[in-house]
């Protein structure tokens, strides 16, 4: 019983990693569309967006790893998703105003696009970056398997990223408006977070059961 619960939780963590990978790349891809009206589609606009995503993910990995040291729980894991969902709200609601303001202040579209990318994408992406290392901690039971666990996790989340890129660029932009996609991503993150927090109880229960056995 305890073991099947544990594997259910592991499956959940992997699914959530897939979701976060999918959403990170979907947002990155939409970033180009969001910035184009203000900063164009010059090569440095993509340069800015990719730089910011790499920076924020790297910081997210660092913080996520640190946070995993103390009392790792699905509750905190789920709250990353919910926080990321909330951090998408400024992008959806005030994205245009923020870009408009910076467009007026900064003449050089290189630095304009870099700073706007920072303001719009840094926080949600950094929080999404925290999920991967934290997931590794939740999944690892003994250190011998840590590499295997990390490999599986990165496989799943990077698969999510690949599909997120493909789905967004091939189909989602053809069917929906940019904001409709972003709102849906936010809702999915929110629900994923809820699911993780809800599963926290069973996670602790079965951990305890495993510890006893």
């Amino acid at each position, binding site marked *: 019983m305890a073991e099947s619960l544990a594997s259910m939780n592991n499956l959940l963590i992997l699914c959530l990693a897939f979701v976060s990978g999918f959403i990170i790349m979907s947002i990155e891809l939409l970033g180009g*569309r969001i910035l*184009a*009206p*203000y*900063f*164009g*589609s*010059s*090569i440095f606009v993509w340069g800015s967006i990719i730089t910011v995503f790499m920076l924020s993910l790297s910081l997210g990995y660092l913080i996520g790893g640190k946070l995993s040291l103390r009392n790792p729980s699905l509750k905190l894991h789920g709250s990353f998703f919910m926080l990321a969902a909330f951090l998408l709200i400024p992008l959806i609601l005030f994205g245009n105003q923020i870009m408009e303001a910076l*467009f*007026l202040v900064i*003449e050089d*579209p290189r630095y304009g696009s870099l700073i706007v990318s920072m303001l719009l994408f840094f926080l949600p992406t950094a929080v999404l970056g925290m999920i991967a290392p934290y997931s590794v901690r939740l999944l690892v039971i003994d250190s011998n398997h840590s590499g295997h666990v990390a490999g599986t996790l990165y496989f799943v989340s990077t698969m999510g990223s690949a599909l997120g890129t493909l789905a967004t660029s*091939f189909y989602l*932009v*053809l069917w*929906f*408006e*940019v*904001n*409709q996609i972003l709102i849906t991503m936010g809702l999915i993150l929110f629900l994923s977070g809820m699911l993780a927090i809800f599963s926290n109880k069973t996670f602790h229960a079965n951990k305890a059961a495993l510890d006893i056995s």
Partner: protein
Amino acid sequence: MNFKMKSTMRYWFSCVVLFLFADLIILQDAQAQRGIREIHQERSLYRNIIVTEDSSRRCLRFTITRRTGQNQSCRFLENPQALVFPYAKMTLSSLLVQDDPQRILIIGLGGGTLPEVYHTLFPEAEIIISEIDEAVLSVAEDFFDFAQTDKIKVDIGDGRVYVKRAALRNESFDLVIIDAFNGEYIPEHLMTEEFLQEIKQLLPEDGMLVSNTFSTSRLYDAESQTYQNVFGEIINLRMNNTGNRIIIASRQSLPDLNTLNRRAANWRSRLEIFDMDVTDYPRFMSTEVDWNTEERPLTDQYSPANLLNN
């Protein structure tokens, strides 16, 4: 990997290589037969730029692959003033709607054909060209005799950004020409309602927008609907022998056919040097709504332009 798999892979690999080479050889043969030589080739930040020449003309081509590339701009070697492409002549015929522009903005330089033509017609007019790709400018200068002067200036950057900044500076242009291509189609952010609104801000009461686009794509309906939403009535210029299409949009009401014909008669001799008879054009200009008005217009939120084009 076992031996069978290895040999199968080797077989497929050699098939692919052979196919690629065969493709290249056939293509080069076809070009050589027509006497087309590549005189310049470079890979810029945005595209491959190729300049070709045969016995009669020199052309600028943006390519993604050698096969899909289209000539963006061509000129006759003997008579450089004569316009090679229908789209350039069609663009010029918009002078029947609104003439004597004193400030002109052209988005997309290409071989520099349009700036030269407008400069010839209106030597006093200030012409600004917004071009994203610096390499296109140097190719135009090196191979198409394009030159910047105090009347013809090029701004290197994205057209959308140029228009936004110009609107902030309260600049106005009597004529704005959208002639931007990325080798595949018009860049998506230069097709949206918001962009057309920004251009509209640059137009004085008697200003005019002329857009060089196509009549043969799924985008036809969406594009038409987008222009209509921003400008109300538009003039659609389509001709039988070309997939090109010119959209003429103005803040004023558009002239009727009689007026267009009368103006064409007046303009005829001035435009003859470009190898065109402008009196042929009014009958192809139409304000008729010949598209599906239910089509979703293009906006910054929804602009899957290149996907719809396929």
